[in-house]
């Protein structure tokens, strides 16, 4: 979470940690996805973000969720955790 918050603060995004988690959860409800698929979703939520900034946010959020055991990351793909 600290890393995700660091990215948010460093790029001065209006998004929050909770918002980022929610965006990923909502996308996962439609099935597994590639990391690149969530980037335009993030850019729509904060329209001041360029592609690379949104990608950094996506990576940091997925890493944080994976550490919590909420998702699995396989290569560039994001999966729901098997509980």
């Amino acid at each position: 979470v600290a890393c995700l918050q660091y990215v948010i603060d460093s790029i001065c995004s209006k998004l929050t940690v909770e918002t980022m988690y929610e965006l990923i959860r909502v996308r996962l409800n439609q099935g597994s996805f590639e990391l690149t698929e969530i980037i335009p979703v993030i850019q729509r939520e904060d329209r001041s973000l360029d592609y690379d900034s949104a990608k950094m946010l996506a990576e940091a959020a997925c890493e944080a969720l994976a550490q919590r055991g909420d998702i699995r990351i396989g290569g560039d793909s994001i999966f729901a955790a098997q509980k």
Partner: protein
Amino acid sequence: MWNQFRTDAYEGMLAETIALAGYNGDLVNAYFARPLGPGPFPGIVLVHHMPGWDELYREIAGRFTRHGYAVLMPNLYSRFGHGTPEEVAVKVREQRGVADDWVIGDCESALHHLKSMPNSNGKVGIIGGCSGGRHSYLVACRVNGFSAAVDCWGGNIVPQGDLTPKQPVAPVDYTADLACPVLGLFGNDDQNPTVEKVNVLEAELKKHGKDYEFYRYDGAGHAFWSYDRPAYRPQQAMDAWEKVLAFFAKQLKGQVV
């Protein structure tokens, strides 16, 4: 300070966009808000944040003007073209931000413009938040003529990442050259700058015997006075506003608050 105006007092202001010859003589647009009347009025160079020369910062300019300051906010993103603030911010992020030299030149030009106003009292401060906090600190170190500087949660004054060709020197390394009092406002939950980086900056100011005041807020993170985003913390934000208004009143108006 806040809400202390007299209900029978005259108040008027003019706010408009103007063209300013900035760094290298480049024409940049700027938002200029100033009180009506003979003055004399102190000035403030307002430095916008990373998401752009936007509506929030125009409203901040208006707030300062209602407290008796002529405020000039250069559009540091002018060289990237025009569009909505968010559209322009995307272009700026794609090109890894603005060069420190451009910012210094644009803000120095704004300083001279404010001082040249016939109703100036000759004193000008500088303030900004986020990247604007970093820029305020940097400009106050590199440009002579400011009477006060306010750093609101400026990230990377003490570097947390790599230096870049556009930002080749960490502002903290210019601290010895700082020639005006500094007010610093920080949220303790902020991750850039972290509490540890704020400690480093404070130690550097102390080491060089600089005149500074730092206030650190629990329960607040980055950009906690941005009322257009979830980071807003009204109680901490209003206290911070009181600190800023008192600081500028003392340094730019000679008032003891």
